[in-house]
């Protein structure tokens, strides 16, 4: 249980308000027409929306994990955070190897893999 306060208030309520506000921004970012704003930065609305969504998703993620799931402020928070972060390496490997590789002819081998590049 939380033994701390956020801005002198109850942490769960504060966290709840924060999450609601962030989600409202998310929905608004999708609903509002950001074309002009995007064009002023030389990009498309889709890209701007995606950036906003990604940037907001991170604090939401942390807020839920840290406060609601008690990964902050409890005696056992440290070791449980380590437990929760343990799969990070394996997640990265799966995303890299499974999600982001693409089949190609063997000739698609980049030069840095080629022995000729190293004088072999």
């Amino acid at each position, binding site marked *: 249980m939380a033994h701390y306060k956020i801005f002198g208030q109850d942490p769960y309520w504060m966290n709840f308000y924060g999450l609601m506000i962030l989600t409202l921004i998310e929905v608004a970012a999708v609903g509002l027409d950001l074309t002009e704003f995007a064009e002023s930065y030389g990009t498309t609305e889709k890209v701007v929306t995606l950036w906003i969504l990604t940037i907001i998703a991170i604090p939401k993620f942390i807020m839920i994990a840290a406060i609601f799931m008690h990964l902050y402020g409890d005696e056992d928070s440290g070791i449980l955070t380590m437990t929760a972060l343990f799969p990070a390496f394996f997640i990265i490997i799966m995303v890299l190897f499974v999600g982001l590789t693409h089949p190609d*002819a*063997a*000739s698609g081998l980049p030069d840095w893999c*080629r022995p000729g590049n190293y004088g*072999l």
Partner: protein
Amino acid sequence: MSLITPLYDSLWNEYLVWSLLVALFTFGWLYHHSFFYRSEDGENPNVDDLEVGVFPVHYDDLKLELAWTIAPFMLIVYLTYISWAPLDNIWSSPNGGSFGDECDYFNNESSDLYFDDDDGLKGAYKANCYHTIEITAKQWVWSFDCGTLEAELCESGFTEADGRAVPHLSLQAGNAYLAYMTSEDVTHAPWFVSLGVKEDVLPGQTTTVWILAEDVEDFLLLCTEYCGDDHAYMMAGVTIHS
């Protein structure tokens, strides 16, 4: 006499030598210790004073442990080094790789494939240019398409092997071929047994394999990616003529 191809054989022999050395070392050690340190009848000294409920005294030697971390590591670095070299051959780029560009059909350019023993670490295949053919697989038949190549260079048809009619591919020795392959149904893989190459044939995608026809020989081509009932019968005859 080469077992598969010179490229494969030189690696194979080198690996075999190292395997033998490692095996001799390990088994010699094992043999010696298992007899030299066997306890005699009735004698059963508790060497390290093992006792129930007590984590035994550490028995280690950092130098030794490091030695057999580093020595195998060096060995595998060397083995990686020698196995890296043939990559340029088996995964050559279609244009401008080890085998040059595609042969100019109208000028009767010749491929002139040969094995250069002195090139690189373990030797390498060299060619002037290469020919392209197409291989299409479906359950459980191969089909070869020679495109515009002359019959002398490439010819496809049917022949009989093991009492069944099977597709047949006839190639000319001394030529490098690049096969573009695709499948109509499930995954297959042609294995050019005597050339030691194989690559999966995927539906909806095109993969490539280099066929380096150096010597005159004939052999069966087998399917080596499981593809259903008649997987074993999905074969073809390959003739490399002079």
